[in-house]
């Protein structure tokens, strides 16, 4: 049972997909239909944050989101992160601080932090920013460098 055409804007490109099953997760649409393998599958139960992407600039767990629920909306993955000025800064901060070991969690962290820093209208402390990153796990436990990347990106953004 498919649910009609699915229209998404993915990294600034309009895509129309036919035959997407109603129970397909955004994660699988991105990885297997669109070939955007930068978004990682970790736990597939919303517990690790590896599959985090932006939907209308808000961090979203692509493993717990039905693709059809996002019909007409705009998705940004790690492949499109540089087209977002905040995303470019975050990506570059991760590079310059060497904030990755095996790299599997990195796309999720970059997207989650981009969403958080893009959302910052209210004043919030660095501690709160780190609390808000608590949904992303690094199984290499390389958190110290990730915290440095977050501090650097936060500092560099207006």
């Amino acid at each position: 049972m498919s649910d009609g055409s699915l229209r998404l804007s993915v990294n600034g490109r309009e895509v129309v997909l036919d035959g997407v099953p109603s129970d397909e997760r955004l994660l699988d649409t991105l990885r297997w239909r669109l070939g955007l393998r930068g978004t990682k599958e970790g736990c597939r139960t919303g517990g690790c944050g590896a599959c985090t992407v932006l939907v209308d600039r808000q961090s979203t767990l692509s493993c717990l989101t039905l693709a059809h629920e996002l019909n007409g909306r705009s998705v940004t993955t790690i492949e499109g992160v540089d087209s977002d000025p905040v995303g470019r800064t975050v990506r570059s901060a991760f590079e310059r601080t060497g904030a990755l070991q095996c790299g599997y969690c990195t796309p999720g962290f970059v997207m989650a932090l981009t969403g958080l820093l893009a959302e910052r209208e209210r004043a919030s402390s660095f501690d709160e920013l780190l609390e808000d990153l608590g949904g992303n796990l690094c199984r290499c436990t390389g958190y110290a460098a990730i915290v440095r990347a977050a501090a650097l990106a936060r500092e560099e953004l207006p």
Partner: protein
Amino acid sequence: MAPFALVTPATPEEAIACLREGPEEEVAVLAGGTDLLFDIEARRARPRTVLSLRRLPWRTLEWSGAALTVGSTLPLRSLENDPDVRLRFPGLYHAVRAVGSVALRHRATLGGNLGRAAPASDLVPMLLALDAEVDLVGPEGERSVSVDRFIAGSRKTARGPAELIRSVRFPEARPSAYLWQRVRPFHDISHLAVAVALSPTDGRWRVAIAGFPPRPIRLPTAEAELDAPYPTDASIARAADLLARDAPIVADRRASEEYRRHLVRPLFARAVRAAVPASRAP
């Protein structure tokens, strides 16, 4: 091979009509989907129809004086980001932040959390302490029930087969606090949680605890023991003793009864003290 049909009605009437077609056990309601899709993935739920509420006009937040009405499909992150919610319902703000992660809260909703009635919900205890009411719409029209009556047990609610949660109403802003204990500070399930709130109207405290089955509960005997509005250390200690001794705390796979009874005393005392300073503010 898609196991269910995804239905996205544009009006509450269409949604209710879809629910009436049933059968009840084969239709699942999807708000944010973060809990339902988890169950579908694990094959604990196998609905034939998934009814999505995404097109319904219920993504709302409305103030009427000190009362707040939250539409059932408003993402929790929007509730948390509202500066007035943080200021006037501090306990609710902290309870919302205890749910999942930011990315999860961008999709998860208050209506979904209530409707799914997880035994360890972080929102239900705070809703109990705030005397929140659930507004339901169904084939027979609208009705409201207290959260206490709405939550009927573990994963059980008083929602009728063709009813939907439209909104949740908070009758008044209250000095309040929410504290929890878990393995990971964020994005985890609470082993024990305490919600307290002080009603400026009747001058009495509300106390609810959660984290163990079957459901979050109010503790009227402990409430009565707390001096109001400013509890003395002695009355906090008496109420904490009552909680540790009499609350219907049980063990489950996440924590023992003994550990939870040990936790409830300090968590409760800290929660009351965290809520009090706000009550002295102008």
